[in-house]
Each structure stands twice: as C-alpha cells, then as structure tokens.
C-alpha cells in the first residue's frame, strides 16, 4: 500500500476567479488520519491559502461539513484510507453559495431557524424556577430526543434535491428542530409554529426523497420528522374544518 494520497480540492477565490477551479495536493496516507487531517497538512505544509472551517475534530460542532467524493459528510469523521487509493475529491457543501474555497454561506439556515421558533413556548401556567423542574419521564423525553441531536452541520440541506432546486424550502434541519419542540412535553407552542410549517415551503415542499436522513451523521432522521408533521398538519386541518370552534 502506498503511503501518499492525492486530494483534489475545489478552490474558489473571488478576488482572482469567477468560477471554482481544481487544485491537487499530495498528502501522507496515515491509517488514522481523517480527510480533515489531510486538509490541515495541506494548510500547514503545502498551501497556506486554503480556507475551510473546522473546530472540534470529533463530530459534534458541525463546522467541517464538505463534499467528499460526491457525498456530503463531516471531514473530521471521514477516514482517508476509506477513500484510497484516491484521488479524493473535496469540495464545499452543495446547495449553498460558496464564499471561498470550502467555506459556504449558511445564513439562509440561520434565518429559517429563527422562523420555526426553536425555544420552549409556554402559554399559561409558567411554573417558576423556584418550584423545581417540569416533570418529564424518560418515555416523554424519548418522543423528541432524537430530533434534539442535530448539530446544525447542514449536511441534510446539501443532500436535499428540493432545497437545491428551491431555496425557499424551509428544509430538513429546521423542520426537525421545530418538531423537537413540538413533541417536547414542556412546550405549548405547536400553534405558533403551525404557519411556518404548513406553508407550501414548509413540510409540503418535501417530497420524501429521504436523502437527508441517509446523509445525517447524527441519526436525527429529519425525513421522519417531516412526514410525521405532515400527518399532524393534515389532522389539524381536518379537525379545524370539521369542528371550527371546538378544535381550539
């Protein structure tokens, strides 16, 4: 087995070019190196001008999402040896505007996140902190826990063809986070989130391609969250149609 591997990196430097170009780098192939370790080697020893985001290197901060050999993935969790003999193609996450090299603009998601009101909404009986915790059994926590594991890495948006074709789509992670709060027994804000979610760009924009769930590194299953909400939304519409006043 050779001890070197080539990284083919998609560069984009707005001050010198109008379109991305490819640049190849040869890095050591160590058996415990991730693609991120390869990129760090490039930056430290071969080309200091390569820009990319990274932080925790343990798959929890969500910074290092990129496209590796066509698949959106966390580069800190992707072993170089899994892509040998190479060359390994490394590009920025798809479906987002590219700011520079492997850095994309995720502000669209940040705006959508606020719109789904991802916080505990209490309508009435707000129990003061001095009276202790809201009781929540392990079974109740199970209802939403999976959806709370989202690290906001944006890999699901990169995988989703609907988002790729239509930037208005609210998207997998935002809807999964809305569900995380809707299904939390302490929350009373499902009504507040209704408008954003039952909009054509909300859950109804989703055609259940299922790529988001396949690509998600944290098993959040956003596709499942969205389909469940479609059922909730449909039931809700039916109820308010049949019992216009009684439904509230």
């Amino acid at each position: 087995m050779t001890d070197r591997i080539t990284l083919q990196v998609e560069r984009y430097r707005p001050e010198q070019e109008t379109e991305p170009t490819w640049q190849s780098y040869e890095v050591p192939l160590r058996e415990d190196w991730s693609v991120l370790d390869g990129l760090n080697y490039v930056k430290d020893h071969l080309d200091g001008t390569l820009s990319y985001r990274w932080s925790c290197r343990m798959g929890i901060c969500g910074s290092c999402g990129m496209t590796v050999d066509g698949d959106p993935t966390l580069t800190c969790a992707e072993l170089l040896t899994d892509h040998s003999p190479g060359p390994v193609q490394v590009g920025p996450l798809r479906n987002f505007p590219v700011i520079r090299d492997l850095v994309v603009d995720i502000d669209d998601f940040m705006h959508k996140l606020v719109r789904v009101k991802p916080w505990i909404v209490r309508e009435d009986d707000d129990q003061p902190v001095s009276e202790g915790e809201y009781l929540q059994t392990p079974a109740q926590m199970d209802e939403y826990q999976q959806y709370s594991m989202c690290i906001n890495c944006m890999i699901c948006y990169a995988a989703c063809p609907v988002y790729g074709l239509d930037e208005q789509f609210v998207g997998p992670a935002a809807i999964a986070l809305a569900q995380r709060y809707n299904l939390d027994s302490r929350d009373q804000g499902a009504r507040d989130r209704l408008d954003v979610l039952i909009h054509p760009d909300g859950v109804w924009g989703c055609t259940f391609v299922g790529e988001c769930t396949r690509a998600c590194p944290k098993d959040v299953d956003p596709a499942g969250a969205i389909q469940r909400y479609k059922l909730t939304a449909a039931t809700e519409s039916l109820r308010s149609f049949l019992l216009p006043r009684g439904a509230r």
Partner: protein
Amino acid sequence: MTQDTYEPRPYRRRISLFWWTERRTYLVFILRELSSVFIAWSAVFLLLLVRAVSQGSDEYAAFLDWAASPWVLVLNVIAVAFVLLHAVTWFDLTARATVVRRGGRRVPTWMIAAGGYVSWALVSVVVAWILVGA
C-alpha cells in the same frame, strides 16, 4: 478596491437539468415519482376492462384482442414493474414515517413494513378468491 468597500462575491452553482442522474438514490426517487403515472394508467385500464365487460361478450372479446396487441402488452409489462416499485417504496416510506411506541421502545421499521406487506397479501388473497374462486 479599498478595504472599506470590498464585498465578496459568493459563487452559486447552477443545478443541472439532469441532477437526478448524479446519484442512484435520486434516480430511484424520480422513478418512484414517475410510477404514479403508471398507477394512473392501471386505473384507466381497469376501468376500460370493467366497461368492456359490462357491454357484453363481443365488446369484451374485442377488448382482450386490443389488450393483446404488442404496444399495449409492452406498456402493461412496464406498468406492472412500476406498480411493484410503487408498492415496495410505499411500504418502505410509510414504515419510516410511522412512529409507534410499545413498551417504551419504538416499533422497528421492518415490522411496520412487514405489517403492510402482510395486509397486502391478505387483501390480494381475498380479491383473488372473489374473482377466481366464486
């Protein structure tokens, strides 16, 4: 440009018309969606069959001749393939979207899908008995 006025220009990649050929899963998705056309065709074919039956044995024989012509045959073979794809993906998707809890744990997806297939089989047996047996 001075540092005070510089605004970076982000690059927006254009999605190709053939985006769905880039991944196997995207292709299967498009075929799955396309299968609805063939579901519609199967429904139309069934209605035509029923109408032919109701119009008497001559019309029925003429219909069967027509149904045996090459292009209708090919179309129906393709339709059966797509109907099967539709059914299999339907059970798979429904199972993944259904969350049922029993005894504190989520019922696994394969069980829900299995339930779907079993129901399908039972209904098919009943329909076949009505049509053929009785």
